[in-house]
């Protein structure tokens, strides 16, 4: 019997520690004696004899002590997952142009001179997609529009042509849009609403704040227009996630924003949800205005909303993908959250699974939406036939088995290996080191915030 390599501990008081096994999903409160045995630095297991047989059996049933080859289990689970979840996620950027000029936008340098796809190019894209589907007929296909801003009024004929092509292939449609010029598309959206799986639209604060951040080039704001467009989508049963990009400055406005969503009656729509996502610095520039580590955001949220779980339910809020993923075991343990939030998934982000293919407005193929327009990251081209650099694409296949650092990390099953882009030093991805963000501090902060609750449950 060995100690699991996925054991994690957090001290709650002198007498109580929380232990978690990130591979099995076990969470337990124990006295220091038990933790000492589990976390002694040597791999010597003779200390186990200090525990009574009942505790030893329990620790084994929870996975803290194990006989299985954990590496093999992880590898096999990932293989099963990849094999049984064949997918193709196609994204088209009709242009990189955008009608807004948000200060934190990672695409700010590529907006102005961007080309816009014409019908012949769009046909080439769909030929390339059909070719890929032909090679992977069992894949679930999903179609997405991204940009720049995909729903610019001036690109209506091309964009509706693109959407029509996706609809003819019965591909569910998703889009990330700033929502400002959707009005031009209302008749189309109304007619084809059933094909739209999801629209993600960003609001960055109540009106005054949002209008300072998400503004037109002449400095006027976009809030009122976006809100009325969201209301239209919800009335036509097109699911909308309002994304709130948070930085140090705007988190404090969340209560006012949520109240506004309720006033607009969005929160009573089954098609509404809202996501809080800290603005990120995936290119590791150190220069993103207002950047805030995830742990700081967590602290601020709990300060603003002492009953954060109730707030989540009331306003249908969730956190950004990685933030949710890392808390899924602890939330299940503390709040017995519903099954949707407690999923077994050892894999990484969508770009790491090599089923993401982004068709840029510049004729190039990209592995991840954040890299579009940056030719160094391109993995091929689609004009005059599909040219996919398989070897370069393969380098994006990053998971907790492939990444050296993650193979030795006790948090790996929770984390999945982080953002591939963040871990890469250049577009070639030859020099890669997993980027942990502030995962450890984030978990510690979450547990510190819930210390009293956990200690109370220990005493009950």
């Amino acid at each position, binding site marked *: 019997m060995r100690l699991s390599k996925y054991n994690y501990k957090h001290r709650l008081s002198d007498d109580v520690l929380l232990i978690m096994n990130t591979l099995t999903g076990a969470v*337990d409160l124990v006295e220091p004696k038990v933790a000492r045995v589990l976390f002694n630095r040597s791999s010597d297991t003779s200390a186990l004899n200090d525990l009574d047989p009942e505790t030893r059996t329990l620790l084994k049933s929870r996975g803290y002590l194990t006989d299985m080859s954990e590496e093999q289990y992880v590898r096999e689970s990932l293989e099963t997952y990849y094999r049984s979840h064949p997918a193709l996620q196609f994204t088209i950027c009709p242009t990189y142009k955008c009608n807004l000029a948000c200060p934190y936008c990672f695409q700010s340098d590529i907006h102005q001179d961007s080309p816009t796809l014409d019908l012949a190019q769009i046909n080439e894209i769909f030929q390339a997609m059909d070719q890929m589907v032909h090679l992977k007929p069992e894949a679930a296909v999903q179609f997405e529009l991204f940009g720049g801003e995909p729903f610019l009024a001036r690109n209506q004929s091309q964009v509706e042509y693109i959407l029509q092509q996706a609809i003819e292939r019965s591909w569910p449609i998703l889009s990330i849009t700033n929502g400002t010029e959707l009005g031009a598309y209302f008749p189309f959206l109304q007619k084809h609403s059933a094909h739209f*799986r999801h629209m993600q639209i960003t609001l960055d604060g109540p009106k005054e704040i949002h209008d300072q951040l998400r503004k037109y080039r002449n400095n006027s704001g976009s809030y009122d227009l976006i809100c009325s467009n969201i209301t239209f989508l919800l009335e036509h049963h097109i699911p909308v996630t309002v994304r709130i990009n948070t930085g140090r400055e705007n988190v404090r406005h969340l209560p006012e924003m949520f109240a506004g969503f309720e006033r607009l009656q969005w929160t009573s729509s089954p098609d509404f949800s809202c996501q809080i996502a800290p603005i990120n610095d995936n290119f590791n520039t150190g220069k993103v205005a207002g950047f805030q580590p995830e742990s700081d955001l967590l602290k601020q949220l709990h300060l603003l909303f002492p009953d954060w779980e109730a707030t989540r339910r009331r306003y249908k809020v969730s956190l950004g993908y990685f933030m949710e*993923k890392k808390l899924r075991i602890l939330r299940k343990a503390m709040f017995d959250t519903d099954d949707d939030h407690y999923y*077994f*998934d050892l894999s990484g982000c*969508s770009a790491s699974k090599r089923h993401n293919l982004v068709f840029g407005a510049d004729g190039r193929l990209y592995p991840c939406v954040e890299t579009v327009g940056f030719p160094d990251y391109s993995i091929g081209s689609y004009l005059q036939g599909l040219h996919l650099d398989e070897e370069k694409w393969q380098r994006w296949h990053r998971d907790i088995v492939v990444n050296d650092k993650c193979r030795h990390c006790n948090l790996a099953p929770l984390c999945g290996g982080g*953002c591939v882009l963040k871990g890469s030093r250049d577009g070639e991805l030859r020099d890669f080191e997993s980027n942990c963000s502030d995962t450890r501090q984030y978990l510690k902060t979450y547990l510190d915030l819930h210390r009293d609750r956990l200690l109370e449950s220990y005493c009950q």
Partner: protein
Amino acid sequence: MKSLTKNKDLWTNLSAKDLEEITVPMACCQKASIQINNPTKKAI
């Protein structure tokens, strides 16, 4: 020792078949996470 998650919910107790059928959110830092991997598959 007090257990906060039940043994029946432990992931390592999932069968190979369960693993094949799970749906997980597919997303990244840019996108809201949506259960989209395969509409015919279920969450566990």
